């Protein structure tokens, strides 16, 4: 089952939720006003969103569990956090601060594990590489930086290296609005910016390999893994489709060609967010006019429209729930664990790192009895062999007992024979005596 989640930046805009297949509206989550890239699903267990707040003193991040509309947990980080990202397991949340600091929390204990300075300008978007070992961050001034999370946690290497990041790209001239990474060992990153360009980088090489110029500011990006198609949502209300062109005449640049666009002629409001479903068929776009449009990427038609109850949409998520849940949202407390703790404001001293919570997740293992589990026949065969060898102590033990029984039985038999003999003897003697007596008498 695939759900579409959308949130808005208006105060108390809430998170709308629809079923992608059927189009039915589901539970709405209340009191959410999210900045762009501020809505994430944490390991399919809960929804998390950073909040736009008036006061600039501290930020806030809210959690919702699947089945309740109210905010379940509120955390207040040290500064205003805008973009959020979480790994697939849902064990970490990474947030980008408006001061350029990047914060890494573990979800289970709420501990702030690391906080490092990404740049001197605000973080605008965050994204994980495919294998979740690299973090890509975009900043307000157009800088894009790639971080190795291992490096961040590796104190020794940090001291050695003169900079923390793996790559730092400065080719964008204005705010980076969205970053998508795709591919495993040979990944590319695509980033779009308000400077009307989309740039493609090689993650492993750390070089710019493609550039495409659009006619208006680009706010959002989605990458279709199977088709090499790139969707860019722009300020003019169109979603441009570009094919990633591998070969080009210009040295090692990889050109991108526009191959079409998805346009709804009724709307000229900016497309602020995009999400592709797992099959690359449905593309959901959120727009400033408060509408969510579901496009069929094959026919390029709108197949469904949802209306967010309040204000312009700036976040869209497609959440795929496993089939066995059968429409039921997984409950947080299913396995007796209490509420997920709030995220900490400050990192504790390094000494306390020793107590970082690490959890062994509950895995549903198959408990069906298997033939391999039965072992009486095997034991029997082994014992049978041992018995036949007659050498082992256990076997001889048994043999002894058997012989003892045999012995007692034979003794009984002897006794019986004896008795019989005696009776017979007695009988014979009696007979003889009787005979004598009768003989004598006769």
């Amino acid at each position, binding site marked *: 089952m695939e759900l579409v989640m959308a949130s808005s930046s208006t105060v108390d805009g809430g998170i709308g939720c629809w079923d992608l297949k059927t189009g039915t509206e589901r539970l709405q989550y209340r009191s959410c006003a999210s900045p762009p890239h501020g809505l994430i699903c944490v390991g399919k267990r809960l929804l998390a969103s950073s909040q736009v707040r008036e006061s600039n003193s501290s930020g806030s991040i809210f959690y919702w569990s699947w089945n309740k509309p109210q905010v379940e947990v509120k955390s207040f980080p040290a500064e205003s956090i805008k973009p959020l990202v979480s790994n*697939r*397991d849902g*064990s970490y949340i990474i947030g980008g601060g408006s001061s350029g600091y990047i914060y890494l929390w573990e979800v289970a204990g709420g501990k702030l594990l690391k906080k490092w300075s990404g740049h001197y300008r605000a973080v605008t978007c965050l994204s994980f590489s495919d*294998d979740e*070992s*690299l973090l890509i961050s975009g900043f307000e001034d157009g800088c894009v930086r790639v971080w190795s*999370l*291992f*490096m961040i*946690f*590796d104190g*020794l290497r940090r001291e*050695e290296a003169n900079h923390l990041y793996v790559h730092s790209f400065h080719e964008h001239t204005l705010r980076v609005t969205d970053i998508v990474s795709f591919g495993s*060992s*040979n990944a590319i990153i695509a980033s779009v910016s308000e400077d009307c360009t989309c740039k493609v980088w090689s*993650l*492993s*090489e*750390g070089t710019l390999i493609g550039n495409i110029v659009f*006619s208006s500011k680009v706010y959002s990006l989605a990458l279709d893994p199977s*088709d090499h198609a790139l969707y860019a949502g722009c300020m003019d209300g169109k979603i*441009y489709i570009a*094919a*990633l*062109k*591998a*070969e*080009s*005449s210009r040295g090692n640049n990889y*050109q991108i*060609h*526009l*191959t*079409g*666009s998805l346009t709804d002629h009724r709307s000229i409001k900016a497309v602020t967010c995009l999400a592709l479903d797992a099959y690359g068929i449905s593309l959901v776009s959120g727009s400033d006019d408060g509408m969510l449009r579901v496009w069929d990427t*094959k026919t390029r038609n709108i197949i469904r429209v949802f209306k967010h109850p309040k204000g312009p949409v700036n976040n869209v998520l497609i959440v795929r729930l496993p089939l066995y849940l059968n429409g039921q949202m997984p409950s947080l407390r299913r*396995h*007796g664990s209490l509420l997920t703790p709030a995220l900490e404001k400050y990192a504790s001293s390094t000494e306390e*790192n*020793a*107590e970082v919570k*690490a*959890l*062994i997740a*509950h895995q*549903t293992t198959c*408990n069906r*009895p298997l033939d391999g589990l*039965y072992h*009486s*026949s095997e034991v*029997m*065969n082994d*014992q049978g062999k041992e018995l*036949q060898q007659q050498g082992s102590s*256990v076997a001889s*033990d*048994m043999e002894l007992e*058997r012989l003892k*029984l045999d012995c007692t039985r034979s003794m009984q038999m002897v006794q019986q024979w004896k008795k019989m003999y005696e009776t017979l003897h007695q009988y014979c003697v009696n007979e003889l005596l009787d005979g004598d007596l009768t003989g004598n008498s006769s």
Partner: protein
Amino acid sequence: MAVFDNFINMYDIKLKPRLLRTLIKEHVPDEKHPFRNPSELSKVVSMIKTHKLLGESSMEATDKKQVEIWTSTVDAWVERLFSLVSSSMPDKRWAGICLLGVTCQECSDERFLASYSVWFHKLLSHIQQSPGDCHFVKVASCASMSDLFTRLGGFSNVKKEGTSHAGKLIQYLLQLLTDDYSEAVWEGAVCLLLTIMTFFPSSIHRHYDSAEAAIASKIISRRSSVHMLKKFSHCLALLPKSRGDEDSWSLMMQKILLTINVHLNDAFQGLEDETRCREAVRLLVAPAKSHPPPLGGQNEASEKLKKRSEQSVISSISTLMLCCSTMLTNSYPVQVNVPVRPLLALIERVLMVDGSLSQSLLPLMTSMQQELICSQLPSLHLHSLELLLSIIKGLRSQLLPYAADIVRLIKVYLKGCTLPELRIQVYLVIKVLLISKGLGMVVYFAQEVIDNAIIDLDSLIHDIGNNASSDAYRKAPSESLLKSSRRKRKHGNRSGSFEEHNDSVNMEPEVFKKGRTSSTSLKIAALEAIECLLSVGGSLRSESSQAGNQKFWRSKIDNLLMIVATNACDGGWAKEEKSVFGPNEKTSSYADLQLASLRALLAALLSPVVRPTYLSQALDLFRRGRQETGTKLAEFCVHALLALEVLIHPRYLPLVDPSQTSINCISAGLNFKLPENKYSHDKKQNPFLVNDESWNQDGDETDYLLTNVEKNVNYPENPNETSGDPEVENIDPTVGSSGIKDSEEQEQQPAMAASDHFVMGDNKDAVMVDAQLSMENSPQENAICHSVNVGPGRTEEESANSEITPGKDFRVDKDDGLAARSENPIIFDSMKGKGSALELDDEGMDSFPDIIDAEPDSD
């Protein structure tokens, strides 16, 4: 029963009761006759299992009467078993109990549910203390009882009854464990306990502490065999499940770790710094808290400890480590906190002890003590590596904060570690780390894996038994490999805390080189690690960028793998079947090595690089391997050929719009030859190839090259054909659809042909020949998409740093061109001409310099 009442066939339902009756009559012992031959029983059991004689129903069981007969026969069977079980002769009792266990497994659901309680009590009476019973019967009853509970665990509706039955049993079982029985009885009891823990965990709840005490004392006492210790450790690890809360898991883990550390203090006296052991304990017990009770609850455990020999201490440490591993990798009903730091501290503590005496404490240990501990250390190391592996498995993504420490530990350890068994285990750990942590981990490990693998694969690289012609090329790369690895070693270790290791390490390569031929399994492990490295991060530059050699680890590894695969497979394919008389499973055969080398080679070919250097040789290897019908190797070779298909024939996959597939098909057909040209060109580039026998033997390819040459000769005679043929132009529907572009292209065409011709004139380079040939084959391609011309030249130029496979580049490019022109003129509007026009210009202009660029490269 009539004499000629025959059956239809061997599946006939009538057969089953008849067979069962015969078994009862002739093979199952009875009260009257002595029971002479126990192996009869195995035959009975195998008969029952094959024919499902106790099933009492079958798919086609429509005949009610037959089913009734069957049921009554099974009744008779059970009746006979009962009489055997209560027999006075122990061997008959034993037979009855064994067969009852089999019946628990084989009988129908209805019968089982109806009578399991009776059976349970029959078996229970033999497990209970009864002086007359010999051990043999006890073991058999434990096994049969275990089967009964296994079967019972499959029914969800009798959980409650099952738990209550199991509850009655536990105390007798613990009695068996604590009493002085033979090991076989303990084994039976532990197996039964495990079964109950798995299926009816809550039944142990009441006896939790005594169960812990019983098992712990078995582990700590010296008397059990290794085999048994494993079972005990598994049992201890599953014990917390019976309570199923977070605290009992954590407490158990803490107790075990403390016990291990206490034991280590004894074992490692004089071998390590005092600080390390205090540190390990400090991590375990928070300063404010009190120590937990010792494992198993007895205080005399520590006193016993002192009396025992080193050997048994080490074996119980290993067992307890195994127990930790099991706890980490088995699922647990609730989430639990894993004490990662103490675990890692423990592992580090063990791995850092290599048997050398610490300077300050020299006189504390006699050489005999040292000998003893050194003999045991490898197994201890092996177990700590296993524990490390379990931590990685258990924590999954949560390993992140600790990953760097683990990596550092492994690197240091790998440097000093020379025993093959341990190295295999380290490679395994590296492999798991790479797979689970991806690209970020490759940055850390690439150099280590490569350096060490080169050392371990040494004998395969310097394979002397090969022909002289190939020797020349083998030597050159492998020596440079070794040199570079040695060079790197010197500044490899930067963590200052392990200086004492550093000194010994630097001498290693020489030592290895002289004496060691590593075992087959070690080579396989090394190859697997490389394979993994390539699949996870083959395109990544290695992190030591200051050395300037970052780009070359890939070509080095590709080279190495090709050599290894060639050498491994040169002498023909090894037999996969293990001989009946040979050693059993554990050892890996030469066939496994060949397979591993081919797997690594495939990874090298598939892992993105500009173009695979050794494709043709590799293909040849795979093709030869495919011939080995019926082997795993052939299976893999087919897979490899399938995977490489994409590199051989770049096929068209729909890009953006599926409606374009028809056009794609046409161009795909036209384009068929190009990539192969590219490979033949690769061969020319490769200096090793000239002498490579395998390649020369390949008739197809030689022929192919010849035809190439012929075509080349023909080509300059009528160069204008390429652009001038109107028929060919018309075949492609897209060209005509956009007038402006068409004309642009046509303008470029003659110029390009001329330029090609020019190059051809004074340069006999293979690259250009290929490029031209491709043009000849598919002139329309060139008209539409310039990159075809540029293809080979470009890849030359960027061979080191571009990451897209050439085949892919090529096809993506062309499709875009088509798509843009045929379907979407609107887009060009939206671009306002600036993007697309510019691009076209660029392409037109750049195609000349690119082609000329190819010249110096190919020299």
